[in-house]
């Protein structure tokens, strides 16, 4: 107890000086596009932000453990639904859509799916990117041949890092991960109907202090930035 009191004193002394940031918990796939966007918003609005990225299910479990999020962005509908059902998030907005692709290292000689050899990386079973990948590979009749060689990564960015460094022969990632990335080459684009729609949802938490950040993310300026990063605009309001 004494120890906690000591920590309390020290922390309140060192931390109280700065303003509480708007805490954004976002799916790993959104990190690269979101970082500059949040910086720009902070400059305009004067409110600092703190971005925390992980795979969508890990973010859900962090919120479940009481992580103090103001805004949460998931890479699929199912996990957002779970957040809303449990009262950890409210009034979700369908922000963007994404696509699914199979990439190989940029210098790979492979030209067709049939030529693929060696390990293929997929995001984890519970991670949205991993679920979409499995659905799409099954729908296109590739699951039986590829699944024995599947290597599951922590989240989609892990998988992308593996393939970018040539550690695996191929990986199933989001279209945005391959966009403007010179280290990988898209070998195959999965048909949108081969997997559930890849929808990015944003929601505020019950006691959120977001100073209009959620609204700003849906506005044209932000949407333009995000589509430049390879996302597609949300098809229609839910």
């Amino acid at each position, binding site marked *: 107890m004494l120890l906690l009191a000591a*920590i309390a004193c020290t922390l309140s002394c060192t931390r109280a000086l700065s303003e509480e940031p708007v805490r954004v918990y976002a799916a*790993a796939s959104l990190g690269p596009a979101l970082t500059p966007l949040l910086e720009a918003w902070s400059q305009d609005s004067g409110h600092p932000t*703190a971005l*925390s990225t992980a795979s969508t299910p890990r973010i859900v479990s962090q919120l479940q*453990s*009481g992580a103090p999020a103001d805004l949460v962005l998931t890479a699929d509908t199912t996990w957002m639904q779970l957040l809303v059902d449990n009262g950890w998030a409210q009034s979700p907005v369908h922000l963007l859509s994404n696509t699914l692709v199979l990439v190989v290292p940029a210098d790979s000689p492979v030209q067709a799916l049939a030529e693929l050899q060696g390990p293929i990386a997929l995001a984890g079973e519970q991670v949205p990117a991993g679920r979409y990948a499995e659905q799409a590979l099954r729908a296109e009749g590739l699951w039986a041949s590829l699944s024995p060689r599947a290597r599951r990564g922590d989240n989609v960015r*892990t998988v992308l*890092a593996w393939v970018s460094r040539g550690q695996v022969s191929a990986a199933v990632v989001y279209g945005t991960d391959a966009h403007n990335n010179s280290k990988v080459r898209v070998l195959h684009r999965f048909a949108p109907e081969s997997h559930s729609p890849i929808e990015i949802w944003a929601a505020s938490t019950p006691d959120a202090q977001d100073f209009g950040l959620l609204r700003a993310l849906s506005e044209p300026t932000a949407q333009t930035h995000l589509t430049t990063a390879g996302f597609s605009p949300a098809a229609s309001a839910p």
Partner: protein
Amino acid sequence: MSAVWLSLQVGLLAAVLGLMPAMALGYLLARKRFLGHGLLSALVLVPMVLPPVVTGLLLLEVVGRNTALGGALADIGLPLSFSFGGAVLAALIVGLPLYVWSARAAFTAIDPRLEQLAATLGAPPKQQFWRVTLPLALPGLAAGAVLAFARGLGEFGATAVLAGNIQGETRTISLAVYQLLEDPSGQGVGLLVAASVILSMGALLAFEGLNRWQQRRLEQP
């Protein structure tokens, strides 16, 4: 760069806040014989061998915001999960075994006859501790602080579970490097790696120096 500064803050706070507990526990374990001595010793040291992720999970069960204690602490402005405080607590708990170990060794090495000598000169027990024992053990305590600082600097598992990966708040060097591994461009990772190596080596050199000072101090009382 903010990750380096953050790690320094976390490591330093862990070393400062751990001083009193490490000193008390080290002295207790070195000098006193009591029921549960072995149990206490094991309990203090267990974070050193427990998988850090498990330590983090256990801490989350105790000070997480959904627990009575964690909720109360968050209410008074001291959240110890998914916050800077959580990162400090994780570093502190994981570093404490090294801290206590070093303090205990320092107290053990001091000849009890020196304290008896002080007693014959009329010093009460309290004064014996503050005027004789503690000054002799000081370099060892400082060495422990340096080790705890260095261990806290590199903390990963418990921090990730208890404090999350929040930029500018809990994303220390370890977490930032791990994060950058997911970035194919890998920009900025070199700086963080260099900072880690320099800080860790610096801490261990300081530890060596302090250890030598401790030995010299005990040879020339």
